């Protein structure tokens, strides 16, 4: 099937305005008759639930955390982009649009990205009005910095805690609606199934994580704002609870999963310290503004960093990419680090690390200035590694960080299942094959505050409110399926913990579907993963019962989905016979090792349709049409 992204016609800059005029509205008096489910309360979910509640809809918001303030958006450090052009350094909506398209290696939809750049300015206004304490200069104006490969300073930030501050802003807006009675937040409640009635999304099945009760909620539309899936790699910068379950269960109910192979590896994370490692910690990319990345020039040089003279150091990013240097995009920096380590020049225990050195910046600006800019990051680094980065270079290594892929949505953020909307990291739409730094926060809030309030109305206006209730047999069926799965997990009583399977899967994913992929490695992954899955269902041990708070059961359910999803990710990577952005196939590279795109054959979105657990999914394509940008080679030299 050829998918239609439903992009409005007309000139790029007028698409969104025209579309807003064309879309139907819901009469104010009718809004309260509609019920909307929002799953996830990160930036996308909280901003969507708050905005929809404020418009007068009845909103049920769900999150697995104990509070809607804790979603993993909170951990974003660096900042949020907007095309304000406050510094007068040449930024514009078109430039932000172009940078995002180019950064995504020309694998995203022009119309979506342009809209994102357009609404970016409103996001900053909104957050300031909420009391988000962005950094300011001494005159009281907002401060900007350049971030992760951008040649203009368009990033707004709140120390190293921008995600936290933006999320707390959205959480406060959400709290206001809870008080107003328009939104009900269901915390410690996990979505385990999407209920589809006559081809349209009409509700969800959830498990109350405290009582264990499985129950159903019906609504006129469902918004999934459930984040990314890179915990399929076991080790990532995501929170422990981040999972693919909500998205994957929607996929199993007919929603298409788009571009799962587009995963982002973040170049500046703290290296692994041993087998016990449960997660990887990211150090904000903003550190690369002042830190210089290097490894010893010679293999196996075990001298401590301060004893290695300048001549024996290889500042490889500055050498290979003179114009971008240490600010080269994430995928390029990550691969270069891996290359250096594979070459035997890695530093630290195990040799999987490179130095990020601040000594020049400290000499130039002084300890205090560096402390003001990155103090909390240096503290965090010291807590984890016991090393003082003011005195010795940090050690960093790439780690899985973000999922550009996600459920397929059209321009209205609606999936192929009518009534199912997908926002934020959970959808695939705006970042193409690679996301630029400080753009995730922008997209989450754009979708929630400024896109979904318009596009969902267009759907609801054509729907009779309350047409489906939980009395519909599909709800009963869904609840029974979930209860049966829980029973099954608890009855296996095998010998391995769920975590052991997760670790095993993660190893396969990192080795065969990681930073560099090949036809051979991907085929190998597709061969191994079903075996792990099969063993899981025979040999996993889940203690306790279903009728209580049971974290082992929660974990096992999520890993069961990862064990299917990992295979889908590998299949998508195998299908894409090109290298682009976060997807690097060793067979497809330039003589200098750069990614080699194949625009003629792969300028499309790959959207996968579920056909059964051990069946090959069916691919559907949405061709990407570029009318406003020239498909250049993404060179950062």
């Amino acid at each position, binding site marked *: 099937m050829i998918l239609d992204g439903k992009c409005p016609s007309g000139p790029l800059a007028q698409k969104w305005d025209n579309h807003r005029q064309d879309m139907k509205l819901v009469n104010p008096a009718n809004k309260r008759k509609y019920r909307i489910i929002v799953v996830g309360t990160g930036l996308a979910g909280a*901003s969507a639930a*708050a*905005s929809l509640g*404020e418009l007068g809809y009845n909103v049920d918001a769900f999150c697995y*955390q*104990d*509070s809607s*303030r*804790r979603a*993993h958006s*909170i*951990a974003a450090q660096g900042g949020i982009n907007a095309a*304000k052009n*406050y510094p007068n350094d040449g930024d514009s909506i078109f430039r932000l649009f172009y940078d995002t398209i180019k950064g995504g290696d020309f694998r995203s939809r022009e119309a979506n990205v342009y809209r994102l750049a357009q609404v970016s300015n409103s996001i*900053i206004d*909104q957050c*300031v*009005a*909420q*009391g988000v*304490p*962005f950094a*300011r200069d001494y*005159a*009281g*104006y907002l401060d900007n910095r350049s971030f992760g490969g951008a040649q203009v300073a368009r990033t707004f930030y709140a120390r190293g*805690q921008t995600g*936290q501050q933006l999320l707390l802003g959205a*959480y*406060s*807006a959400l*709290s*206001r609606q809870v008080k107003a009675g328009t939104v009900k*937040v269901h*915390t410690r409640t996990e979505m385990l199934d999407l209920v589809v009635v006559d081809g349209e999304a009409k509700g969800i099945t959830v498990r109350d994580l*405290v009582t264990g009760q499985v129950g159903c909620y019906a609504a006129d539309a469902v918004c999934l704002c459930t984040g990314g899936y890179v915990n399929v790699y076991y080790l990532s*910068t995501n*929170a*422990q*609870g981040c999972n693919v379950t909500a998205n994957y269960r929607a996929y199993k109910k007919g929603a298409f999963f788009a571009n799962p192979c587009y995963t982002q590896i973040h170049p500046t994370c703290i290296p692994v*310290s*041993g087998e*016990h490692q*449960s997660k990887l*910690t*990211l150090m904000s990319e903003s550190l690369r503004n002042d830190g210089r990345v290097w490894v010893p020039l010679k293999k196996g040089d075990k001298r401590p960093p301060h004893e290695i003279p300048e001549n024996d150091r290889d500042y490889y990013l500055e050498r290979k990419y003179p114009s971008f240097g240490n600010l080269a995009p994430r995928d390029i920096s990550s691969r270069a680090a891996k290359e250096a380590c594979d070459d035997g020049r890695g530093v630290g225990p195990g040799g999987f690390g490179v130095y990020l050195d601040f000594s020049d910046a400290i000499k130039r600006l002084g300890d205090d200035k560096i402390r003001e800019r990155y103090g909390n990051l240096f*503290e965090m680094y010291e*807590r*984890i590694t*016991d090393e003082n980065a003011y005195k010795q270079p940090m050690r960093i290594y790439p780690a899985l960080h973000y999922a550009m892929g996600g459920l397929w949505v059209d321009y209205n953020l609606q999936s192929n299942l009518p009534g199912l909307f997908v926002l934020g990291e959970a959808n695939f739409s705006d970042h193409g094959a690679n996301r630029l730094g400080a753009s995730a926060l922008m997209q989450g809030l754009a979708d929630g*505050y400024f896109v979904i*309030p318009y596009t969902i109305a267009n759907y609801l206006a054509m729907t009779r409110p309350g047409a489906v209730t939980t009395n519909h047999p599909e709800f009963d069926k869904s609840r029974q399926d979930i209860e049966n799965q829980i029973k099954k997990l608890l009855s296996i009583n095998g*010998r391995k*913990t769920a975590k052991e399977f997760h670790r095993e899967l993660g190893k396969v994913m990192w080795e065969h579907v990681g930073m560099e992929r090949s036809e051979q490695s991907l085929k190998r992954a597709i061969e191994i993963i079903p075996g792990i899955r099969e063993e899981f269902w025979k040999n996993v*041990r889940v*203690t306790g019962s279903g009728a*209580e*708070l049971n*974290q*082992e059961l929660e974990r096992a359910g999520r890993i069961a989905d990862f064990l299917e999803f990992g295979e889908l990710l590998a299949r998508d990577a195998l299908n894409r016979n090109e290298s682009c952005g976060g997807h690097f196939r060793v067979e497809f590279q330039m003589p200098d090792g750069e990614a080699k795109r194949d625009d003629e054959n792969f300028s499309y979105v790959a959207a996968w349709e579920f056909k059964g657990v051990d069946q090959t999914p069916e691919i559907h394509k949405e061709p990407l049409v570029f009318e406003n940008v020239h498909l250049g080679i993404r060179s950062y030299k």
Partner: protein
Amino acid sequence: MNLNLYVWRQKGPNAAGKLQQMQAKNISPDMSFLEMIDEVNEDLVREGKEPIAFDHDCREGICGTCSQVINGIPHGPQERTTVCQLHMRKFRDGDSIYIEPWRAKAFPLIKDLIVDRSALDRIIQAGGYTSCHTGGVPDANAILIPKPDADVAMDAAECIGCGACVAACPNGSAMLFTSAKVTQLASLPQGRAEAARRVCVMTEAMLNEGFGNCSNHYECQAACPKGIKVSFIAKLNREFIKAHMS
């Protein structure tokens, strides 16, 4: 290293709880505290026993989910550090470690080390926001904010809502938590319009939830992983008095 743990185990809110002794063996000093508990839990599951239930999520000290009292101190011995960022190198081989949940009247226990902190959400819901609509707000640079004010607001906004202040307070007070939000918004022009009403409704919600009042022990500041200062409580009191005098 090997450690001797005493962990609070309690099946549910109405069950009796007790400290259970268990061993943590072959623990690397590079492990985080929660990774140490992960190891213990893995062994328990393999033996078919129930693992220790505990709250945690981001494991990078920002989400505010983790919540354990370690040797009598919320978040453990390292200053300005959440449990998830505490590493085992802060302990010695053979140490005995007592691990307990947050204890406060307003935080009912759910299971083992997990408590219900939704009372903190309800304090925010009472008025911890500016009542701005989505859209229809002025340009971000239309309101100038002197840097010192913006810095105070940011200092206060660093609160992660973990509740360690409540657990540390002999009075089970949430004054530090409440004062951080009050200070953040009262320091900014956008928040001034509702400042008087806000401090009143938030304080009232705090008392209705069963949190005690501040009794100047300053334990909250000592336990806070984000360095939120008791001077914000003074600010809250000042805002409260101002609200009642006008």
